[in-house]
């Protein structure tokens, strides 16, 4: 018995070594050849595996897009009573699935907490992260991911009970503040209070439900997160705890929170598709293309630019090559599935009371920041 076990161990170990050695040879090879990937400087061993295959190919092969989302934030990402996902971020998952696979329903939603989301992306549990995630320098640099574009310009706010009498952050010396772990808001909160020389106690939760329970019992004086998130949580605040009227969001915006989709580092094919789907939906709004008129527009594009966007010939001409490794009509599919930027906003964020006109999220032509680089 003992000796059998011993030989088994021996066999396993030698096998590991053999595999290990052959792996080493494989690894060495690309260094001899001229690398095909320009990002291939070897400082980033953590993400070595990602270089060999593109997520785009994988999604095409699999036929399903794995999208990391929020499941608890009405307006952005939430599970409905019917068990389906819905929201602003969810629509972007659908748009990308429609663009790549031609079918907006080919999405597998993976609900993630704020603190688990980056690991989920870098460990390839998901292909794409769209979970009200803020673009920051350190996240771009250290977390092994790339931000594609901004879909919503947000800022951090502070929500308090109306009867507390708080009007500004300066009133909140000594207050206890509820905040979510692993968010930018946890760090901005500290910056803001520290620079004002105010004492405070952060109560840091991993998920939203226990946080809300604590806030409802007034364990904390303030609740801080993105203003869009606060609007959503305020709108749903249970009547038993006073309803939305019991709460006010202070006027001050504590930070810049540009939210948008993320892909893994060094995954440029997939990154490009996601980025241009975002831009495409913005351009669609600018050009007046909606989910209801997209078919008509595709049949008879008004100008060569619109033809390029929709991947159709202009007049009797040829189709411009704009495929990004997917079907040239990918933007058309995306618009059909979810509509243009304005339609998505109207559907999910307007009901939360997030007025678009005059905000950063208005079209650039109307003084906002929503702007797409040219489609050519």
């Amino acid at each position, binding site marked *: 018995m003992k000796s059998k076990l011993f030989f088994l161990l021996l066999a396993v170990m030698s096998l590991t*070594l053999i595999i290990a050695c052959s792996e080493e040879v494989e690894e060495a090879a690309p260094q001899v050849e001229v690398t095909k990937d320009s990002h291939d400087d070897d400082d980033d061993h953590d993400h070595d595996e990602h270089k060999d295959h593109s997520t785009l190919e994988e999604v095409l092969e699999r036929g399903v897009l794995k999208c990391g989302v929020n499941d608890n934030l009405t307006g952005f990402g939430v599970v409905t009573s019917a068990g389906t996902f819905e929201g602003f971020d969810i629509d972007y998952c659908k748009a990308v699935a429609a663009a790549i696979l031609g079918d907006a329903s080919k999405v597998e939603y993976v609900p993630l907490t704020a603190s688990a989301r980056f690991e989920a992306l870098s460990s390839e549990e998901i292909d794409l992260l769209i979970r009200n995630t803020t673009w920051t320098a350190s996240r771009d640099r250290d977390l092994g991911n790339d931000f594609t574009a901004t879909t919503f310009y947000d800022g951090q706010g502070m929500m308090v009970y109306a009867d507390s009498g708080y009007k500004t952050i300066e009133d909140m010396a000594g207050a206890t503040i509820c905040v979510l772990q692993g968010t930018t808001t946890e760090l901005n909160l500290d910056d803001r209070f520290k620079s004002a020389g105010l004492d405070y106690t952060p109560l840091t939760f991993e998920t939203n439900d226990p946080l809300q329970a604590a806030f409802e019992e007034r364990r904390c004086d303030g609740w801080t997160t993105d203003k869009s998130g606060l609007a959503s949580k305020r709108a749903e605040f249970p009547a038993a705890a006073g309803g939305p009227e019991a709460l006010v969001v202070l006027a001050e915006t504590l930070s810049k929170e540009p939210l948008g989709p993320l892909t893994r580092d060094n995954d440029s094919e997939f990154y490009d598709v996601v980025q241009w789907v975002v831009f495409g939906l913005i351009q669609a709004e600018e050009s007046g293309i909606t989910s209801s008129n997209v078919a008509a527009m595709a049949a008879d594009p008004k100008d060569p630019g619109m033809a390029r966007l929709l991947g159709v010939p202009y007049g009797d001409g040829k189709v411009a090559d704009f495929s990004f490794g997917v079907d040239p009509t990918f933007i058309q599919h995306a618009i059909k599935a979810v509509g243009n930027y304005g339609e998505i906003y109207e559907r999910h964020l307007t009901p939360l009371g997030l007025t678009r006109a005059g905000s950063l999220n208005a079209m650039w032509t109307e003084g906002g920041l929503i702007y797409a680089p040219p489609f050519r």
Partner: protein
Amino acid sequence: MSIFIAKLSTWSRSQKNRNLFYQLVFLILVAFFVNYLVSKAMQLELTLSHFESRSGFGISHTFIKDYTSNDSRWSAYFTGVINTVRVSLVAIILATLLGTIMGVARLSKNVLFSTIAYLYVELVRNTPLLIQIIFWQIIFLKLPRITEALTFGSTVVVSNRGILLPYAKPAEDINSNIFVIVLLFIIIISFVLSYYLNKKEDIDGKKFKILNYNINGSLAGTFVFLILSVSAYFILQKPFVLDLPSLYQNSKGTYLQSGGFEFTPEFGAILFALVIYTGTFITEIVRGSIQSLSKGQTEAAQSLGLTNYQSMTLIILPQALRSIIPPLTNQFLNLTKNSSLSVVIAYPELFMVSRTIMNNSGRALPVFFLILFTYLSLSLIISLFMNFINRRVTRIGA
């Protein structure tokens, strides 16, 4: 060549030589294997250099050690470690007490006691710990809000921000540290003294006497402790002063409570959950160990005229202890590891703080190694301590 083979075959005929050969091969393979693992590990940036960086986030519970967001990530991490140790240590002590009482109650002839203990075990053991933690969080949140906080004079403040109790705090000057050290010495001296006197009494078979008064070792130890510590306190000019809790409103109308010893809802919830949950397993261990003793022990104790309490504390439990300690060690280890679940209710222990650092720095793997290493170290310390106790217990029994 043929000579060599012949030699080899004679050499290999001996079982001992063959074993030697296998062991050598095995050793070489192990060396290669370790080398491979190490070289792989070296490629994954395993450094923790980013722990020197400013942490940038606040921590709600700090104990013993001060911490602000201006300190390093190391400092944040150690604050988390202290929080883990703190809750685990208190929970281990309380769970052991609870488990012992319930274990004895479980076997009590009193139907009420044994039923209570039975229900306790069956109800609590069969629900997930995570749910119990959230349950206790909700219970603690139901304490009065701070605007309606209960105060008992200026001694106790009770609200769902925390329960504040009077506490001793170091006075402004430097003497407090010296006092703590002196106090430790005094405790050791008193223990040694009472141990020595008790031993002497056992050996001599007669009471130790001063001026015709019987002096019991434990009594003498307590007496010496009191005299020495009180004098040290005054000689060092009252190094600790009473810290009374208070409840007040600042100029902006924010209610604040401060001072004293703070028992927060988060600490309370994780503590209660760990104690009550682990207590069920300890109950079963205690019950099993007592039942495994022969009935003759109880009968003999009773026939000696010992009361139930005496026979339990003097005869049964000391013997049961021998089979209690090894499984008890396991429960202590489980408890410590389970404390990482407090991440859901905002108690900033080691795992939670480390996750925040991981999120801010991105270098997940080295941080995970650090977390594993820390839990491993804590477990080893508990195991070593319990082994030490176990050795003492088995020796006394023998």
